[in-house]
């Protein structure tokens, strides 16, 4: 167990160092589930900007296992144990815990990178934003897709006017559930606060709102019969009059791409792989490939692993330079707002083979 040290001087000292002598930020990861194992821990281990000091999980066996595997010096069962031990915390916990535990950190001046969805409600998002503002801690949200070159490229392409007027989008994202979960929280309403919309939807809607701007209206349908939805569909109309369709699933293998039609071309973007295709209108040819970025003379694609590293280092840089992270709370709140509105206005998805038509 770790000793409990109240609001640390060491934190203040470390953040006040000049850039030439910046010591690595002491980091704690809270919640050692699949997201931590696949993304956050490997990213922290390879980054020289942080020192991964402690892993926290109520399932201490899980924390121990990962601490052994990644050579992390300490583990803890209760996140409160790390208050004096870490300058910054990654919160990769069940959705219902995002706000309360993040706020507890932020109030103590501990910087937070919280997983998506930022929180299950906008009210909680607002409290998180306020807590960060008051203590001066940096709050970033783990909408990791924003770090994909491909998504950044698309955004720039749209903004450049290269494609002419954007007309519509059609997103189908789904797999027969295969995420290597470490707990059952995703399927428990109290902890997950929703189904596929709250989970996959947090990424998907963030991307769409980022690319196409605010929405004007929507129709939302899902298959929830008193638990949490496995499937949902949204018809969206954006303020710039772009129309779109979103189909998300945990029980169907969908195509996992977004198809965007514009005045001049059709663009298809894969949501998991880094693949894009552009087909000019009227031409039966298209280009298909990866998006790369230049590093001096070198051009590089970004892997999934790189995304988590980029996300982590962007947040650390914001902490150290006092700037904004790529995805601050205000930005992540937008998709939470739409998710919340969808749930409040839900209609039942029509499933003709299902015997029971009413909830």
């Amino acid at each position, binding site marked *: 167990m770790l000793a409990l040290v109240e609001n640390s001087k060491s934190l203040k000292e470390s953040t006040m160092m000049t850039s030439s002598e910046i010591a690595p930020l002491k980091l704690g990861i809270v919640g050692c589930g699949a997201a931590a194992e696949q993304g956050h821990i490997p990213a922290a281990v390879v980054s020289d900007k942080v020192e991964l000091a402690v892993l926290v999980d109520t399932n201490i066996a899980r924390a121990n296992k990962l601490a052994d595997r990644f050579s992390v010096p300490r583990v803890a069962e209760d996140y409160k144990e790390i208050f004096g031990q870490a300058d910054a915390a990654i919160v990769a916990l069940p959705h219902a815990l995002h706000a309360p535990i993040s706020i507890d950190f932020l109030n103590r001046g501990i910087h937070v990178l919280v997983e998506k969805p930022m929180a299950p409600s906008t009210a909680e998002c607002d409290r998180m934003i306020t807590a960060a503002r008051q203590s001066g801690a940096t709050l970033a949200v783990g909408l990791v897709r924003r770090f994909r070159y491909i998504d950044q490229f698309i955004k720039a392409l749209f903004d450049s006017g290269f494609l002419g007027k954007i007309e519509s989008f059609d997103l189908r994202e789904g797999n027969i559930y295969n995420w290597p979960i470490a707990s059952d929280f*995703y399927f*428990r309403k109290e902890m997950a606060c929703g189904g596929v919309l709250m989970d996959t939807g947090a990424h998907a809607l963030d991307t769409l709102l980022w690319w196409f701007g605010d929405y004007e209206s929507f129709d939302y349908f899902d298959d*929830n*019969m008193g638990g949490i939805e496995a499937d949902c569909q949204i018809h969206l109309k954006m303020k710039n009059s772009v129309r779109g369709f979103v189909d998300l699933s945990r*029980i*169907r*293998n969908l195509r996992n791409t977004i198809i965007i039609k514009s005045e001049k071309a059709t663009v298809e973007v894969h949501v998991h792989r880094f693949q894009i295709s552009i087909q000019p209108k009227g031409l039966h040819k298209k280009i298909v490939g990866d998006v790369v970025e230049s590093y001096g003379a070198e051009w590089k694609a970004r892997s999934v692993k790189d995304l988590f590293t980029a996300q982590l280092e962007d947040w650390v840089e914001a902490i150290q330079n006092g700037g904004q992270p790529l995805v601050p709370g205000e930005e992540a709140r937008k998709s939470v707002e739409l998710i919340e509105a969808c749930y409040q206005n839900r209609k039942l998805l029509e499933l*003709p*083979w299902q015997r029971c038509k*009413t909830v």
Partner: protein
Amino acid sequence: MNQPRYATINLKGKRVLVTGGTGSIGGHLVERLVMECQAEVRVLIRNFARASRVARFPIQMVPGDIVDPSAVHQAMEGCDIVFHLAYGSSKETTQGTKNVLKAALEHKLERVVHVSTISVYGQTADGDLDESALRKYSGESYADSKLKAEKLAFHYFRKYGVPVSIIQPTIVYGPFIGSWTVRIINQLKNERVILPEEAKEGLCNAVYVDDVVEAMLLVATRDKAVGEAFLISAEEPVTWWEFYAAYEQILGTKSVIFASQSDLADLNRQYKREHGTIHQVLTTFRRIDVLLWITQLPAVARFIRLTEGIIPRSWWQHLKNTIILHGSTRQSGPLVSEEKPLRLLTDAQNREFKARTRVRIDKAKRLLGYQPRFDLEEGMRLTEIWAKYANLV
């Protein structure tokens, strides 16, 4: 169009445990138990990653594995009825069933619905089949473990008076069903499927999943069901050809090739020679393999005629076009155009497709009032709507 209806079975106030509730049939059962029967449903969950379908309903999800006696015992606490659908490896199936029966005895459940299978009768003879037929081991591990499980169920009924009722469904198909819907659709989509000529008349006792669920609810609630086993199928069987053709129609493709027994024997012999192993497991050939190898076959001329006869002209044309469009430099003769790998039949499959067993459901009708509502056309109508929604087509 509306679906056929069943009489409502009321289980209000009843606590029900479902094992295997995260499975494809279990998902349909849980839906009806919750939404229509108004039962209080508990599902024993080994792997929460599979819980997406049942998590849509207001149910209690208890983590646990059927092979763990204390998990099963705890899960059954306070329950009135258990539906036992879970199965796994041979050992998991028998051990799990024993755990369920023991817990049911300890908690004095009012009904144990054990879901068995027609496979407990082994290789069935042509003609009518009813529950008086001899159960026999077939050497196939799934079938044999289900027979052991069924014997355990009868044993607990006879020796300890556990009120067990057993259903033996036939070829179950419908939305979400892996074995006879998703698997067949994927095969027809990605491969050329060979059926023996005899499958044109061989009988497929297909039953739509909702009829199976209805039978489960009936055996759970009818007194006469205690200590009995019931074969559950549709009103009449269809031919295997009709069954596969229904999927081909959904897909809009023709992927089934009928082959005579001598063609099949040639193919198998050749395959064994080339690959040196006896393939009890299903074997698919990758494209190039098949092409090179098929052209060496003595029966190749017959084979070409066979495939040409089956595959319509427009389809050949289409295949040629795709090949050419994709810039292949190969000649676009008929065999080269065949892009999909070929799947050989195992001996057991060959026998199954040839058999003309007609499953009788008179006992279920008489004792349970079971009346299947779905024929192949109606069942496939809903299956098609689902398959399209599920992006399988």
